[in-house]
């Protein structure tokens, strides 16, 4: 079963290309800091040095190695992306499942909350929360992002559950005397696995962009490097206006590469899992 899916998926050219880009960037982010041992926080050379053999991506205004920063930044950004996607998807799925399954008053209340979350611009909410936390580590930033971005997942899951719970196999389980929780987890969730997985991937990409956005305002992680904080420092030190291309282009380009390949991977998987879209 798993093997069949894998073979099928890897026949899609789009998927293979985007997935290999994604996998290699993740690999670089994970293995890079172990292999390339230059400490990103330490001054190792002249300030604002151009890329050379000693400094593959040059140095920043304090003479710190940018290649080391980017390597660290990739892993931090991806970590924040996945962590907030996990938490965000979990919140969305739980709320959506409860709302769709229970219906009635519970559904109404949960949907009001969800709608408020959705109409309230996520970025503003993130700014508001992040501004009042003084020490922001990776975990906080990830949580802030996930707490503001689960709305549409909850809505989607709820709609799916609503249509699924009228299916016969759910009645069968209910007749067999299974509890609500068991039905939800054993019968309903597996049927939505591909949808939830899609949400997860899209949320990862959105969360990474949100992290970079927060960092740009100066509300990212307070210690360490993410792709966003490198851009933030590049902006603070006027790297753009002084033409220090090696400082601000690589982190942004990598960010775009990751998010684009995530998006393409998700679309390719979606096409594979829902045959209606195939061949169009």
């Amino acid at each position, binding site marked *: 079963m798993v093997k069949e899916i894998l073979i099928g998926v890897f026949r899609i050219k789009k998927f293979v290309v985007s997935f290999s880009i994604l996998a290699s960037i993740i690999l670089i982010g994970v293995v890079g800091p172990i292999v390339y041992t230059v400490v990103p926080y330490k001054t190792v050379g002249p300030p604002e040095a151009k890329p050379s053999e000693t400094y593959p991506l040059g140095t920043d205004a304090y003479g710190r190695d940018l290649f080391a920063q980017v390597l660290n930044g990739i892993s931090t950004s991806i970590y924040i992306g996945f962590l907030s996607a996990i938490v965000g998807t979990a919140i969305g799925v739980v709320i959506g499942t409860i709302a769709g399954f229970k219906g009635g008053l519970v559904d109404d209340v949960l949907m009001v909350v969800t709608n*408020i979350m*959705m*109409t*309230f*611009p*996520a*970025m*503003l*909410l993130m*700014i*508001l*929360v992040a*501004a*009042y*936390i*003084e020490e922001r580590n990776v975990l906080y930033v990830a949580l802030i992002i996930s707490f503001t971005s689960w709305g549409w997942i909850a809505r989607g899951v709820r709609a799916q559950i609503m249509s699924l719970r009228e299916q016969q196999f759910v009645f069968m389980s209910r007749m067999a005397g299974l509890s609500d929780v068991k039905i939800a987890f054993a019968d309903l969730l597996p049927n939505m696995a591909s949808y939830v997985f899609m949400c997860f991937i899209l949320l990862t*990409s959105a969360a990474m*962009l949100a992290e*970079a*956005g927060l960092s*740009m*305002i*100066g*509300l990212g992680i307070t210690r360490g490097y993410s792709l966003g904080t490198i*851009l933030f420092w*590049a*902006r603070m030190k006027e790297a*753009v*206006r*002084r*033409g220090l*291309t090696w400082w*601000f*282009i690589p982190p*942004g380009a990598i*960010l*775009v590469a990751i*998010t*684009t390949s995530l*998006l*393409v991977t998700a679309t390719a998987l979606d096409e594979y899992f829902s045959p209606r879209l195939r061949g*169009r």
Partner: protein
Amino acid sequence: MLIFLLPRAVPGNPLYSLLHKLSQTAQTNPEQLRLVEKRLMEEFGVGKPLLQQFVDFLIRTLNGDLGTSYFFYPTKVGDLISVHIPFTLGLLLPATIVSWVLGNMLGAFAAYKRETLKDNALLSVFLILSTTPYYWLAMLLVYYFAVTLHLFPAGGAYPIYIQPSLSLTFIAAFLRHYALPFLSIVISAIGFWAIGMRVMMIYELGSDHISFAETLGLSDRKLMTYAFRNSMLPQITGLALSIGSMLGGQLITEIVFNYRGTGYLIFRALIAGDYPLIQGIFVILISTLLIATFIVDVIYVYVDPRVRTGYSEK
């Protein structure tokens, strides 16, 4: 209500950080401290129960009084915002509309040419554009057009030496400053709209009524118009939903360009810990958003004949 509760609910009470700031000011300016402290006691109602504070806040907000900024001291929050908000709206609204129109047209074009080289090329460009963050694109644009080519200024909303007025020189200078932020928002938003439109169009072109029209021998042009009209509806809803995220991106773009809008003001307020100002900006921005969403809803009624007849029948 969220705006009111959140700052109070999260750890690191803003009042505390305000008082902390106050004690710093005390060393330099004890007179101002006493004055501000008195005002603070009045305005924030320190010591009053939370509910009382909330009611006060609501009543004052409804009366149009957003309090006094701490950082720009005697200036009222309302005045500060009214100076900055025209810049934000003047940038956000045209940019959103232009990108929406262009995106829809390009998306429809890609759908018309579907499964061809042109479609594939356009689609890849859209995909990359839709994930490109506004601010990074803004940095690239500044680097290329302002630093390398010296075509446009690198930041600001207008030169400092010119006073805002309706003179020709000011308008010309303003437009030159306007170009880059405008472009960066338009370009990075086009991809999102184009992808949505392309999917909708392909779906519409495959639907029964279009196939029927095709068998009647209608021209391609006519068919496209029909499909286009139907695909517009979800796009209008999308516009209503996305105004919020557009605003978020806009705020960051403003910061990158040092553009004198509300995003820039928020940035200053956040750095200064200017709590009433932040609160005020949020109140204004969110009410603006609600109004915008409402307007789009009204437009929707005019555009969609089904909704329109639904209303008139009632």
